[in-house]
């Protein structure tokens, strides 16, 4: 009884961990799909809302052919979260196909990513929101003496590939290669006997 009371009090005062925003590299080029040629009852106006995060999970897993761990690192969420987003995306698309509903891509708590450049002529920093178009000159002084501005915590493609198959100990930083079929949390660090985790997942980014 007392324990239940304490738990209730705790859950009342302690706020949960804030929701992690999903990182999306580019917004989709279209805002949805419409079905055509409905054989049963004319046109079906019902629609399914596919979130931007679900679109991105689908793009990374099925179009870019990454595995769930790599996609999770790119979207800055944990691997189980990505798998849930991906499962939801497939469920929604399947429902739209079977029921002949239209798909609208919008919503979701996401942020878009764009890379930064620094100009050596005028000392300004600028970003490139249109990723498809290459930047040829500084937007302010028109010089072409600029370079990529790397932030320290930036995850580049190579580091993504390097961290892909590594289990790491969150306590001492010991690393060993990951074996498929053996979850990292079942591995015990030989140095300090702690449970290990996969390298590159969001909450141990500092390692």
């Amino acid at each position, binding site marked *: 009884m007392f324990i239940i009371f304490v738990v209730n009090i705790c859950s009342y005062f302690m706020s949960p961990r804030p929701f992690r*925003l999903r990182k999306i590299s580019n*917004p989709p080029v279209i805002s949805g799909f419409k079905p055509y040629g409905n054989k049963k009852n004319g046109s079906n106006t019902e629609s399914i809302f596919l979130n931007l995060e679900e679109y991105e999970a689908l793009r990374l897993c099925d179009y870019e052919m990454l595995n769930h761990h790599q996609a999770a690192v790119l979207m800055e969420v944990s691997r189980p979260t990505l798998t849930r987003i991906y499962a939801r995306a497939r469920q929604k698309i399947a429902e739209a196909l079977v029921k002949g509903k239209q798909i609208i891509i919008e919503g979701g708590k*996401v*942020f*878009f*990513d*764009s890379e930064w450049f620094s100009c050596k002529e*005028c*000392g*300004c*920093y*600028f*970003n*490139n*929101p*249109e990723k498809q178009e290459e930047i040829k000159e500084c*937007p*302010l*002084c*028109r010089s072409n003496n600029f370079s990529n501005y790397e932030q320290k915590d930036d995850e580049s493609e190579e580091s993504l590939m390097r961290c892909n198959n590594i289990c790491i100990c969150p306590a001492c930083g010991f690393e060993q290669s990951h074996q498929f079929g053996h979850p990292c949390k079942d591995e015990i660090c030989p140095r300090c006997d702690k449970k290990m985790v996969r390298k590159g997942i969001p909450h141990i980014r500092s390692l």
Partner: protein
Amino acid sequence: MKVAITSTGNNLESKLDQRFGRCLFFVIYDSETKGMEFIPNPNKDAEEGAGPASVQLVASRNVQRIISGEFGIKIKSLLDSLKIQMIVLKEPDKSIRELIDMLNQ
């Protein structure tokens, strides 16, 4: 192309404002017609949400670039989704006239 510049005053000699959401004036400069417009910022004394409100104000003028000293943490994702380019210039001594001359080069 329209460019927004944050300004500390409403004339060409005033300096670049180092804040975005709470700057005193926005200068909307059209590089094709060479016309410009000074808009007093209604959010300069806002306690909260000055950044997103300013983004809305600037985006309603179809601006494609913004020059300012600094952008707050809520702004980047908004501007990325609106495809507005941010230019960060850490030089508080630059006047609006100098910036417009640079844009016209």
